[in-house]
């Protein structure tokens, strides 16, 4: 088909119009609708900041925020340290490392819901595999009620997230390691640098971009995590493992208070944006050095 100049100019717009229409209908419109909802309380349609001011005096929201940040920082630290360790290990000339790499990636490929259900069964204090295994080693498991005690429940959700997402960090860091050229290492060898000095002065600085990407992506996800925690503890016992996303869910779907829930969602969105922007600024600073 030979197109005239005008048709050629119009064609791209015509072709993307269905996508744009879907985007407007399913993303943009709901976004603005929920902004509108967050300024309404109860059945009144009049504009009020009540939902936002309520956030500051709501003990459950404040503890949900605290839980989210503690969870995210602990999980992130563990995932980073373990992921880095695994990446360094598998970057060497280890025999059969391809098999290890494939196996390590399996947790990441499972749906979070499935991970949640299976871990919940394993963590069952009376019939689960974890306590069963510990018992066979002679450990007294009567007080190891994983999902029943507040501290253990919190530990459980961290363990499950670390189990599932460390492979992701590992993958990114491994790619970063393999992209580092050999020359700096050869130079360091000639200069007589120790293993630790090499790691600190060559590996880490050259790995920084990859590290920041991994941390950025994981942080954004950790702030939003819902599926696995919902299945494991549903925010319990009490509200010991309730993160912001779980509280939003409870407010919207158990109490039907959509105004307050959307207000909280926006606060979460803004928080995530600020943190991500900070990471990215850090990343850009590294590039200019």
């Amino acid at each position, binding site marked *: 088909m030979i*197109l005239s100049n005008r048709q050629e100019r119009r064609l791209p717009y015509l072709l993307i119009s269905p996508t744009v229409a879907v985007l407007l209908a399913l993303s943009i419109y709901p976004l603005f609708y929920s902004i509108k909802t967050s300024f309404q309380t109860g059945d009144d349609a009049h504009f009020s900041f009540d939902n936002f001011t309520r956030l500051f005096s709501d003990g459950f929201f404040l503890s949900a925020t605290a839980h989210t940040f503690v969870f995210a920082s602990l999980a992130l630290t563990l995932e980073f340290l373990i992921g880095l360790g695994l990446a360094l290990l598998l970057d060497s000339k280890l025999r059969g490392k391809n098999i290890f790499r494939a196996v390590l990636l399996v947790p990441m490929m499972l749906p979070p819901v499935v991970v949640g259900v299976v871990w919940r069964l394993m963590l069952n204090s009376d019939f689960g595999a974890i306590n069963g295994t510990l018992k066979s080693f002679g450990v007294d498991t009567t007080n190891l*009620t994983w999902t*029943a*005690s*507040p501290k253990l429940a919190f530990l459980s959700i961290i363990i499950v997230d670390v189990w599932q997402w460390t492979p992701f960090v590992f993958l990114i860091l491994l790619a970063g390691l393999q992209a580092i050229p050999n020359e700096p290492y050869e130079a360091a060898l000639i200069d007589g640098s120790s293993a630790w000095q090499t790691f600190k002065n060559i590996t880490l600085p050259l790995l920084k971009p990859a590290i920041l990407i991994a941390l950025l992506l994981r942080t954004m996800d950790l702030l939003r995590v819902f599926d696995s925690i919902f299945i494991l503890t549903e925010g*319990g*016992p009490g509200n010991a493992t309730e993160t912001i996303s779980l509280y939003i869910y*409870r407010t919207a779907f158990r109490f*039907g208070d959509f105004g307050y829930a959307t207000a909280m969602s926006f606060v979460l969105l803004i928080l995530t944006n600020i943190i991500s922007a900070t990471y990215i600024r850090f990343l850009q600073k590294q590039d200019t050095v």
Partner: protein
Amino acid sequence: MCRHSSFSLKVFVLLLVVSIVSFPACNRGGDEKVLTIAVVSGVEGDALTQAAKDYEAQTGVKIKIAQFPYTNLFEKELIDLQSKTGAYDLIMLDDPWFPKFASLNSMSELTPFFQKKNLAGPDEDFVKTSLALCRHPYESGKLFALPYVGNSQLFFYRKDIFEKHNLKSPETWDDVLSAAKIISEKESMKGYVMRAASGNSAVADFMPIFWAYGAEMFDANGNPTVNSAEGIAALKMMLELGKYSPSGYASFGADEVSNHLLQGTAAMSINWPAWISAFSDVNKSKVIGKMEFTTMPGAKNPGRAEIGNWLIAIPQAARNKDAAFDFLLWATDKQQMKLSATRGNPPTRASLFKDEELLKKNPAYPVQLKSLESSRPRPRTPQWNEIENVFGIYLSKANSGEMSAEDAMNKANEEIKKIVERGK
């Protein structure tokens, strides 16, 4: 000129064809005579599902069942009623949800449907306490549902263990505590078991103790009074009982409680009659014939169980309301309810509790009827969900040792007050 218009025309026709072809995908139910019923997973919902299949076989009316676990069912029905989507023609609801659903003004009033059939309303055979739940306001208002499953709590205990230690059937909570102590010390099992998971679980197992001690959730003006001296005393009794319960009870739900009883690792509990049949099931029970069921122990006040009936209502936005009402009337008539009873659901008709055939398989029916007739509903406020949620969190915290009884009740009262204020 011709080339321009033929190109635009082709694109236009293509888009038109694509949109038309995708329309049938969003079928807006052109089917008449197909009823969609939302039911709960478990014994209660399974019985209604069976009844629906029978109805289909008898009348040819097609019925689609949408079955969900308890909390999912609540969410789906809430959304359906709030946005009036008409996705369901009949909904099965737990009675504590009723005030909230009724306040949305989106369930159909049933009296006009009765009148169309030349009936004044539901007949006298329905247990009064069950029918009262279906009216908004409670007991005196308009009728919006019919009761289908007549559950009210019972007290379960191991009569063989009690006989072994010369213990009388427990009549007060102090009796329960002393029996629990003796059994926990002298036997390898725990004396008591309860569910104290946050939310519905903890509250349902706490209310009978709370009421027996003379505490009330609200005073005459609607102000919360859970932290009254009686309320705190009731919570302290619950914590005492917790000492003789299996560890981890602070996050137990109904399944864990029943498992402990069925496996013989605990001797007493509050539970729902739906579990009675499991105790004589060879595949599930290690304690066949050893369990006794009685009415709720009392304290300052006579024991009153918490009522927990499943009701069936018709949303206003339902597409086949008349057909739905025909099914509802059929499913709650004496014959169908008797069938439902053989499938494990306590009936809501007084005559069926005395039916000879049913009594053979359900010897606990007289006790159940007594319990049902003297039972109390949870407070009939549309904000019950939020209140139960918050109350349940603090009860759970007290039981897991995070807070003292006084702190838990005081904080709970504060939060409940906030919720009540917001609702005004």
